[in-house]
């Protein structure tokens, strides 16, 4: 009998992370694409860090930061009443850091590929930067937007190292699908591990395939115009 809770947790985590990151990363990506500030490379490097850092390093620092003995952990626990270590909330916060570049970079690339004059035409029409973002920029980068959302979601589902470090493996709370597979292998339940792994593989492939099919169709549509 397959225990579905780890999958449900994985998808709940990915969905929440994607929604939160979209709201956080959208203004950041927009700002990065438009700014001529000297601090741009610094912010870009910071944003990209999770791509190159081993998840265990990121997880370790977050574990230290989230601990009640650290100022961050103490603030969350004393002021907001939220525990971050070994809780689902902590996983969401950690995932937002871990998956940040996968949301920011496609959006930023999309914005940077837009015709600069089109953005300027909106400003000339008296529209603010925010209105230009929502009504002109975002609707014109649909493939990049879809890529950002789907890759962030898929990447969060596939998260392992950070989740294990920050969340541990508490059934129904932090034991997501990737952690569950790891544990099954550890106790040599290869049969179950096979089923779980195959489900993850199939889902990931379908998700990616749908993104590429959509983007392929969009490009063909653009070519026909």
């Amino acid at each position: 009998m397959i225990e579905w809770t780890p999958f449900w947790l994985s998808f709940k985590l990915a969905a929440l992370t994607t929604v939160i990151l979209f709201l956080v990363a959208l203004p950041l990506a927009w700002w990065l694409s438009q700014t001529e500030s000297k601090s741009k490379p610094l912010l870009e490097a910071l944003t990209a860090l999770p791509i190159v850092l081993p998840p265990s390093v990121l997880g370790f620092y977050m574990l230290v930061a989230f601990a009640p003995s650290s100022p961050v952990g103490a603030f969350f626990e004393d002021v907001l009443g939220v525990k971050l270590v070994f809780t689902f909330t902590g996983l969401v916060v950690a995932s937002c850091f871990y998956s940040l570049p996968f949301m920011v970079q496609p959006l930023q690339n999309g914005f940077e590929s837009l015709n600069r004059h089109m953005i300027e035409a909106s400003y000339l029409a008296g529209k603010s930067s925010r209105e230009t973002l929502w009504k002109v920029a975002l609707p014109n980068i649909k493939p990049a937007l879809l890529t950002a959302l789907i890759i962030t979601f898929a990447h969060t589902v596939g998260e392992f190292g950070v989740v294990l470090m920050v969340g541990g493996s508490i059934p129904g709370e932090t034991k997501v699908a990737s952690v569950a597979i790891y544990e099954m292998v550890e106790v040599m339940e290869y049969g179950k591990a096979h089923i779980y792994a195959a489900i993850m593989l199939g889902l990931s492939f379908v998700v990616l395939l749908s993104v590429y099919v959509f983007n392929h169709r969009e490009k063909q549509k653009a070519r026909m115009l």
Partner: protein
Amino acid sequence: MITLEISKKLHGSDGVMSLDVKHSVNRGDFVVIMGESGVGKSTLLRVIAGLEKAEGSIVVDDAVWQGSGTRMSVQQRNVGFVFQDFALFDNMSVKENLLFVKHDNTLADELLEMMEIAGLGNRNVQMLSGGQKQRVALARALMHRPKLLLMDEPLSSLDPRMRRKLREKIKELHTRFGMTTLMVSHDIAEARVLANRLWFVEKGRVREYDLSYLDTLE
């Protein structure tokens, strides 16, 4: 009356040079700005529109757009601007492009009618020809009834027949809307039809010439 006293460093093809403009434009003037590529013609328009920063002052009627420590944003200047590459909003229909600037259905219909594209209102702008796109861009630039219209080689990517037709349209719009217009162009015939004043930009310096100077260029 527009008074320009602008100075800006440019990175041109011959290295760093300075764009220096000390001129004034009267209400209703149609200034055609000519000169070789890369000498700062487009930059001049962009500085006036507020799309680029420069030293100096820009005073339009009694309003200080730039100078003595203040700088009006591009949104506040209310200029009409037409780009060479049209710069239409690809996610919108022809009419939506106009209404995005100002929700004035009557004016939008009137402008589309004037530009002879009234039948294309619901068409996606990506489906239009170059000439049709530039007519939409012109109509869009006039939706907030600007006093000042800036055009950066608006006709240069169009075929000769369409250029002739659209320059007549531009002339008509300039008069009808009572605008002051600055237009960058390489086309002598265009300058002849449209300009009442002629500026030449040479290595960042702007000099005014009499219209008869056009005869010497042919």
